[in-house]
């Protein structure tokens, strides 16, 4: 897969080409070609350490790729002088550890980015924040500080914060992995609704049933490459690669 020039994916929102990332001499991503189109829900699955988080973090440049390209509507965001902050504001990110701003209440968590990065007026930002907090069922908690919320509530606020920006796509890095089991459902329910509403999503997850049910496509990562990618139904029902079968079998067993 590396070496041969990848075809441009028509109307992809974000696309990576031969994306590589090394930490020191340790190459973690070994050439990833990936694209997500408007309205698609793509799940990224794979064993722990296969590079899923690193890949997602390279897409919105929380990690800087060592080589390769990240294209936003065909524009190279790694080019010198490219407005990286503007690009990031167009892609939402939901973290495993929520990362709500600890000094701000729920409402202001959803307002600050809109005002500071998207240049919206405060009343407009508040209106949008309330709209999306209502969507995730967290509007009664506008005055609460993050420390006063449960994990599931925090993650729903984090989703509302990302949605308030009005992003073209939302990236999720194991959004339910840090949650107590009884809170996983409320977050997956919100994500399921978002997927159904046509939001573009890239979801790194270990929730296989969820990935099967909501995704259009599934990418299986193994050792720093996408070993197999295809429609969700096909990947789960009849994976083409032996590695994919092994990984999924371990999941069904465990």
């Amino acid at each position, binding site marked *: 897969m590396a070496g041969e020039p990848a075809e441009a994916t028509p109307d992809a929102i974000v696309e990576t080409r031969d994306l590589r990332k090394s930490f020191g001499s340790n190459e973690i991503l070994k050439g990833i070609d990936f694209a997500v189109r408007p309205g698609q829900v793509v799940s990224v699955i794979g064993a722990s350490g296969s590079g899923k988080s690193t890949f997602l973090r390279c897409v919105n440049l929380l990690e800087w790729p060592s080589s390769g390209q990240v294209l936003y509507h065909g524009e190279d965001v790694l080019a010198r002088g490219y407005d990286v902050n503007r690009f990031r504001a167009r892609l939402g990110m939901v973290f495993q550890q929520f990362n709500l701003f600890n000094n701000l209440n729920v409402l202001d968590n959803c307002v600050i980015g809109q005002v500071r990065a998207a240049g919206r007026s405060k009343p407009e930002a508040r209106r949008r924040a309330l709209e999306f907090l209502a969507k995730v069922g967290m509007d009664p908690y506008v005055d609460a500080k993050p420390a006063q919320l449960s994990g599931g509530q925090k993650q729903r606020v984090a989703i509302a*914060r990302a949605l308030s920006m009005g992003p073209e796509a939302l990236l999720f890095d194991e959004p339910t992995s840090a949650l107590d089991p009884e809170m996983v459902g409320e977050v997956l329910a919100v994500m399921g609704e978002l997927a159904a509403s046509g939001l573009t999503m890239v979801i790194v997850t270990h929730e296989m049933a969820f990935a099967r049910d909501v995704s259009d496509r599934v990418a299986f990562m193994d050792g720093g490459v996408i070993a197999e990618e295809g429609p969700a139904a096909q990947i789960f029902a009849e994976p083409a690669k032996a590695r994919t079968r092994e990984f999924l079998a371990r999941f069904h067993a465990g």
Partner: protein
Amino acid sequence: MTTALLAAAEAGGRNFWEWVAHVVQDYWPWLLKGVGVTMFLALTGTLVGVALGLGVGVVRTIPSDKHSAGPVRRVVLKAVNILLAIYVEVFRGTPMMVQAMVVYFGLGMAFQIRLDVVTAGLLVVSINTGAYMAEIVRGGIQSIDRGQFEAAKAVGMNHWDTMRGVILPQAIRNILPATGNEFVINIKDTSVLMVIGTSELFFQGKTIDGILYQTFPVYLLVAAIYLVLTFTTTRLLRLLERHLEGPANFTLATSSTTPESILMAGGENYGRRTR
């Protein structure tokens, strides 16, 4: 000297406590002035020092990796960082008493600038505190969870907005005890400014002693005043810290707190970014 002391004591015909009472009665305006100057220097010096320390701390955490900054900017940042590091090392690594002499007499010699002694003292305390605060602020910023920076980056916020809106409010709360500590230290350490003749509390005590030759009663009184100042300040700071921790509860928004009321509410003041 000893005979002089005895003579003075006998001439006055007072015992120890009578001397203390005498100093309080006849010299309280001097001592009060000393307290005023000491507290002014300690408070203002700490505040200016905190501002300096915040500035230095923020500048030293500006990302200077290849992707965040162009080549010119990186060179400038590097140079500025070296200068700031020298500032911090020099002022943490030399006694404030020596700094006072160098600043007060040095400025006079080199630039014919004749500062009055209180201004010179304020300058020294501020710069000295700034050097200590710079390290405290840096530690405060580094102690903030990386996830806070990443979440701010992920919504597209720049370094300055991230610092102002997310990181510094948390860092300042974390370093509040250390800042209060600097203030209390400054109440005591401004006493070294008597070497340039700043009329702070210790200097005033020294002057009174020079008149009365009653070293023990005078300095015991001065010590007691310092203790009252530091003790009171420590308690007040503790109250302030508790106050800033804020309410432990929040109210659930109900029908009485409609979206409209939230939209109208003040809340955090971000100010719009001007481009």
